[in-house]
């Protein structure tokens, strides 16, 4: 997965042109954020973690990682739509996993599931520090590039 991200980076170096994007929600198997400044709040942890590079992926969970830009403008690379640029903002990274029994129960009743999900990206690395099965990550970023990988 990390090799793929490196390949995308190489491709992006040749064409840094980006357009303003209205879509603020993305899904991907893995995500890498490189930022000038980064403060990561992890659900359940009191102290935020500071860093410059964040890598998060779902290697056990079949669902993709969900990325939501809750605050800030999103620019998308013209050449490669998997590259996003955010000058300043907040990004939430989550990996929703349905609780099987509850999900099946709601589907049987023909209802929209209410909260039969847990949120935990399988693996997160912040400047080399590894966190496993964490809750939702809220990342405050300045001058950041986000790379989404399939």
């Amino acid at each position, binding site marked *: 997965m990390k090799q793929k991200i490196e390949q995308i980076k190489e491709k992006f170096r040749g064409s840094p042109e980006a357009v303003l994007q209205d879509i603020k929600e993305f899904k991907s198997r893995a995500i890498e954020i490189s930022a000038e400044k980064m403060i990561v*709040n992890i*659900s*359940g*942890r*009191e102290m935020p973690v500071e860093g410059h590079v964040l890598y998060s992926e779902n290697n056990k969970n079949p669902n993709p990682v969900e990325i939501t830009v*809750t605050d800030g403008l999103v620019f998308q690379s013209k050449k490669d739509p998997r590259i996003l640029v955010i000058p300043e903002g907040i990004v*939430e990274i989550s990996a929703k996993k349905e*609780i099987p029994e509850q999900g099946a129960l709601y589907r049987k009743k*023909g*209802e*929209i599931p*209410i*909260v*039969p*999900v*847990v*949120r*935990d990206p399988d693996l997160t690395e912040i400047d080399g520090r590894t966190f496993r099965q964490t*809750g*939702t990550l*809220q990342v405050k970023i300045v001058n950041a590039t986000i790379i989404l990988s399939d």
Partner: protein
Amino acid sequence: MFPEFSREQQKLNLEIQQFFEKLKEKTDTSIFGIGMVADNDAQTTFIKLRNPVIETPEHRIVILGTVYAVSLLECKKAVQSRYTTPGVNRFPKIVEDMLRTGGSSELGRIGRIDDEVMRAIRTEVRTLQRIYVGGEKSERIAFLTSVDPILSISEYAIDGRHTSGVPLKSQLIPLIIKAERAEMAFTSTAGMKVSDLRVEQRGVIDLIGPKFEIKGVQDNIIITKSVGRERIGDFITIIAIINLGIGAVLSLLRRGRFLEISLPLLFSAAVLLWLRYFSEWGKEYFAPSEIGIEGEAPMEMRFIGELA
């Protein structure tokens, strides 16, 4: 009795005092609109919070992301007012029944409603049932991820322990909320003090790093009910039809005094049918049961925060 937050309250009081002292020092009004303090009777129907920390006498709950704080009564009203049925609006009554009994048999009786709407109302009421605890409905506050539709919070840290997949149930007041940012529309009869010593009575504000002490919920919701005498109406209709049938048969026999006997029966049937279906009184009196909701259930609070 519910315990008080003496230490937290003292801290908040101290902060309010310090804030005013800071204001007195800065008499120059060039620092216009730096902060806002409500130490009396501010009210709001909901607060939009970012990354709140909720201090209850028993727990410390930390939530990441955007959260809405709403009184449970407002929450229930929102669901009851969101959907309508054609003709007489029976949705508030259905929501009431579903909350009380847990069943949704009433929904099946409304055939003309869109299937999607039925699914949505069922899901919303189920969500409300999850955050609705016992009979202490008026003194509780719900924290939601979305107000329209209502979605409960399923990821939070309670006393430092991360919880995911289990909905956060409503919380008893009083409680103290600290947040990174908050937006709300407020009203206050006594007025709220802004840093340039202006006093505002209502408005919409965006605060950075506010602290709230939610003290209570005012139940100003007025519910007007019509009793629902459908069954009596049905009984009157049956009597009228029987009278009409017997009267018609007797009048057709054309023997003896049968015609004379049939006349009062036919007349009574006509009067009953007119009263039931054509008079204004009958239409209103025998209408299906319904609930009409008016008013609001705002949260009472004190807060301190810097204007964004």
